[in-house]
């Protein structure tokens, strides 16, 4: 089958399309109001949920930190931390969550920009891959930020409940643990994201490469 034969088959297919696939305006209208099932839309929805959760948590953590300082009786973590420790922990959590929200917004706005654009195939692939990478980076780094804080403070509460801070092994661990947890979270996050999106991104990068070989 050469190109001319392909063209005649294509014309036949067009007739088939006209007689079998044509839909009414109502179906187009329904599609306009439907929910997207694309990978990027699912990521966008997840980012949106995380944004709302993180924003609420920031307000909550900051309010509790403030309350712990002005009224020690309201310390919500008094079973493990003193009011000052609670305020430091909650304040650090609020700051970390704010960093998460910043990364989240960056990824979200990239996706929004890709969704509302009508770029050519090459540029769209570039932007799409970039937006996906931003969302993946958000997923990895949000864990890298939060996990060490939670585990290190849990260790601090356990190890220093009846010991003062001193220059010993326990204190050294207090500095080593965040790094270890951070590295572990990064590697685990990278592995999980690779399992989820690695092959998808590899495919798209391959297509982009084939368009760049000008």
């Amino acid at each position: 089958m050469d190109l001319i034969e392909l063209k005649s088959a294509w014309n036949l297919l067009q007739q088939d399309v006209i007689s079998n696939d044509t839909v009414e305006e109502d179906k187009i209208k329904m599609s306009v109001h439907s929910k997207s099932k694309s990978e990027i839309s699912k990521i966008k929805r997840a980012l949106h949920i995380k944004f709302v959760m993180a924003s609420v948590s920031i307000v909550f953590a900051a309010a509790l930190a403030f309350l712990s300082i002005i009224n020690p009786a309201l310390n919500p973590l008094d079973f493990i931390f003193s009011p000052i420790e609670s305020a430091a922990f909650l304040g650090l959590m609020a700051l970390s969550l704010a960093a998460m929200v910043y990364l989240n917004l960056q990824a979200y706005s990239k996706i929004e920009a890709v969704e509302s654009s009508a770029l050519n195939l090459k540029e769209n692939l570039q932007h799409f891959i970039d937006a996906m990478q931003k969302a993946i980076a958000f997923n990895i780094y949000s864990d890298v930020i939060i996990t060490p804080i939670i585990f290190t403070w849990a260790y601090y509460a356990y190890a220093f409940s009846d010991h003062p801070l001193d220059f010993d092994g326990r204190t050294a661990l207090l500095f080593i643990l965040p790094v270890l947890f951070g590295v572990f979270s990064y590697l685990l996050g990278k592995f999980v994201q690779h399992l989820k999106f690695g092959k998808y991104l590899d495919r798209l990068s391959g297509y982009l490469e084939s368009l760049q070989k000008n």
Partner: protein
Amino acid sequence: MPEKEQKEKEFIRLVDESQGIIHKVCRMYCDDEAHREDLFQEIILQLWKSYPSFKGESKFSSWMYRVALNVAIQDFRKEKKRRFLFLEQFEFKEPASAPKTGFKDERIEALYKAISNLDKIERAIMLLHLDEVPNEEIAEIAGITQNYVRVKMTRIRTKLAKTIKTD
């Protein structure tokens, strides 16, 4: 009538007039009816989201090809879950085979067979070529030079020739 409603009406009318483009893209990239319907819906949705970006600088059909092909290229069906402890890894399947619907005309079957060995970018260029879109417009839609469109078409021809030989 509120402006948004009016825009939506105008958009639906324009899409309705050129819906053949979307169906052809769906036929080119999907190997079953369910997938075709999903892709059709996804393309309409994406066209609507990017409709504000259509300023009439290019032809409506050219804009439609661009958006529809972008959606089709990014669309993969997740398949063959592999497990790593509690984590799942997905394979992303290319629409490799001819549709299972079975066409009465063997020329259409042969067309699908020929297309099945092309990757998604090659399919896009092939579709535009078969639709008699001028090289200049193909280059604009794909974001490559006209010369590279010709190079791509030569490669596609060679690939098609090989497919036909092996059959």
